[in-house]
């Protein structure tokens, strides 16, 4: 199990979390590469279908932040 690497699809709000992820880069914080970001205009845009679809496509987790 130690080699288990989860695949995460993350939906980040353009105005806060997406900007925060950019700042993490500016600060050169190093973190694992397990997630792929989809930029959304607001977490209000998040539809349950997006969660389900990401999981069906093989994601181990869905991360919504905003």
């Amino acid at each position, binding site marked *: 199990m130690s080699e288990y690497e989860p695949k995460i699809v993350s939906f980040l709000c353009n105005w806060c979390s997406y900007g925060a992820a950019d700042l993490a880069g500016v600060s050169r914080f190093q973190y694992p590469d397990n997630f792929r970001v989809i930029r959304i205009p607001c977490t209000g845009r998040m539809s349950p279908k997006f969660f389900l679809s990401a999981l069906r*496509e093989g994601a181990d987790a869905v991360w919504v932040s905003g």
Partner: protein
Amino acid sequence: MTLSEVTSISGEAGNFEVEVLKKPRYVDMNKCIACGACVEKCPKKVDNDYNAGLNKRKAIYVEYDQAVPLKFAIDAENCIKLTKGKCGLCEKTCPTGAINYDDKPETVKLNVGSVVLAPGFKAFDPSVFDTYQYTKFPNVVTALEFERLLSASGPTLGHLVKQSKDHEEPKKVAFFQCIGSRDINRCDNGYCSSVCCMYAIKEAVIAKEHSGGDLDCAIFYMDMRTHGKDFERYYEKAKDDGVRFVRSRVHTINPVPETNDLEVRYVDDQGKIQTEVFNMIVLSVGLEIDGSTIELAKTLNIELTPGNFAQTGTFTPVQTSRKGIVASGAFLGPRDIPQSMVDASAAAGVAGEGLAPVRGTMLKEVQTTPERDVFGEAPRIGVFVCHCGINIGGVVDVPSVAEYAKTLPFVEYTADNMFSCSQDTQDKMTQIIKEQNLNRIVVAACTPKTHEPLFQETLMAAGLNKYMFEMVNIRNQDSWVHKESPEKATEKAMDLVRMGVAKVALQNPLAEAQLQVGQTAMIVGGGLSGMAAAETLALQGYETHIIEKSDRLGGNALKLYKTPKGEVIGDKVAELVESINSNDKIKVHLNTTIENVDGFVGNFKARLKENGEEAFLDHGIAVMATGGKAYTPDEYMYGNDPRVLTTLEMDEKMKSDDSLVKDADCAVFIQCVGSREPERPYCSRVCCTHSVDNALELKRRKPDMNVFILYRDIRTYGEKEYLYKEARDAGVIFVRYDLENKPKVSVDNGNLKIVVKDHVLNRDLEIEPDVISLATAIVPNTVNDLAQFYKLPMNDDGFFIEAHAKLGPSEFATDGVFLAGIAHYPKPIEEAIAQGKAAASRAITLLARKEIFTSGQVAKVDPVLCSSCGICVNVCPYSAPSFKTEGPFAGKAEINPVLCKGCGLCVASCRSGAIHHNGFDNDQIFSQIFAVNA
């Protein structure tokens, strides 16, 4: 112009010559791409001022990650090359050749009509206090240092640790208030710094959040001053959350031997000496004006107050003593963010009054390329992958990513660029788009947050609709954060490019709605803030209508006597009313109410009832200055005895020198009547100053009168604190009471009697006053109908809720509607006038554009699918959706693109799937999800 200093201002309002000394940056701003390669190589470490010296930065630096402009600078005092002539590593490392050690200072002359001074403040330096041992013990820190320790971008990433060498988590933290404020013995800052009580509570609450609930935070204070909007609630909540509040000024700190802890000794409420051990002590340092600002004021010939703040008038709150020069922010007095924002807008508004005749005369037209119609074309996608020097290229295998992109559907062209944002690359991209007949573009580079607009311009220059674009973030969210794993970073870049290509393939050209802004302003309320707003709007050239329900202008100010500065309010109001009435741009509608409002930003239509007659008023913007009134008390025998007055009634009696006041030998003021109670859990902000000022006036008129003020906390914030001291010096007696133990008023043998428990003597005090003045709460006027017409939210207390508590105090989330005065929150005259001018100033930013282009990325209803359920209408925070009232789809929802902010809440909420989101449509987001895996 950064790193610049004003050295002189000559001339007069309307025609100033400003001399600016531009200091060298040693980095060419046009070339620096803020990649940070220089910082990694720079060998010189320097204390990081931004983190209050708690960690180090390099001699080449950017002050903080969000700095604007995000360009590096060399600190000449510490740079080895500039001080010793050796090193030069940054020059060798810089991928764009931006370093210039030969940069020289330069003097620039500017010709301007108005000047705004916003020099800010500096935090008080507690090293001068040996009592607090700031320099001696590492665990005594300033609140600013503590703030940085709590910050996610601070030296410990928000993890709270002691500053002694053990770096353990503290278990007990003490905050000492009024360090460098309200103290004239040691540091000569007699004023209250206004913000420290609130920031100490905030820091205590956040510290508890970061460290877990068992962290003990104790705030040692004299008066708790939470007089801002919603601050009293925050204070009460902090108490509930376990923050301890100790009313005491600590006199001694002693180190606990063999530990890094500190023992404090203080006298508690009962007069007993207590000792308690803390791991950390936070000094809540006050605000003060920097010496260089005082020098600047001298150079500019600006008068200062005793506290070295800019001298202004109560009715001209941002105007300095020199015409044409206005001020904003902490230079006007210690203040918090919302007040600074109000002042800033007001200063801009007043500065603009003098510039109105020349508005728009120095503008240049932007050249545009006609847009190519790509309707019906199959996607032809161009993918440009950026090296960003070594920023991306040093980690991600950029040529492979570009090569990979070629294999993706609809991709017709790929290239890798060294710097995609450079002007020559932009020109090249424009050429390629045209030559290759591309109709959709992906740029894989830094981040859309900073560079999307730039690349969209490139698309427009090539004749493409600017929305046929997707930016893929392979720097900030890839190469910079996965430096140690280049292969995985490359793989991630390929994934992200694939997702971007999938999304852009489904993109259609978007149109931006255009809207004409009606050039007329309507102000609801003819009190001070409404009149102030009207004055600024009219002086800037806009036709302005004031709607006043009563038969005269002036509002509550008509009832007031004088300001603490001694200005007679009646006279000042008369002057203002006269200037309003004589301005032909302003039309005053007295005895007028608003019956209904239709429309939206730029195009409102109000139905009025003016003197009983129906009238209509088209307006582009509206200002809510609907004010408030004094709460009518039902305690302290008010209404049962004519000697018990409200503050406003007291003002009337003082104005007319009524015998009730003239013959009195003893007067008592009772504070917080109706305020800071469960029913009205807010501070009315103005009453402490007002009562203290009236008490002083009584003492001036009759020095041997016994004057008492019964209070809970005296909240004479800012330089109003001088009045409090003056009152104590004049012999006004202040007696504190608790909410649980309110004063009792009765009539005994025809005489008024008050019984109140004195905390110092710990016994009941009996007073027989001849007159009692009740500092009644301020309550907002009831304006539910207006709130409904413009769809404006109100809080539990009935005050309007502004767009943003800190950054947007004078406007609503609803576009085109602005807010001023007591309708926002209780406030004194100078703040009400400032906010009137601020609301006008914010409105002018809209009016001056005459027409607005909105984003193309908005929601759109497909009426065939709409089931008219109304969810979109209910959920939208901006009132963009409504039901069509006519046409073939009457009854179906439609979304006004002008009001839509493109958040997508309605799209996600629509149960019929009838709402499309331009630029973020369902199929586009699904296409990204499907493309996550290759």
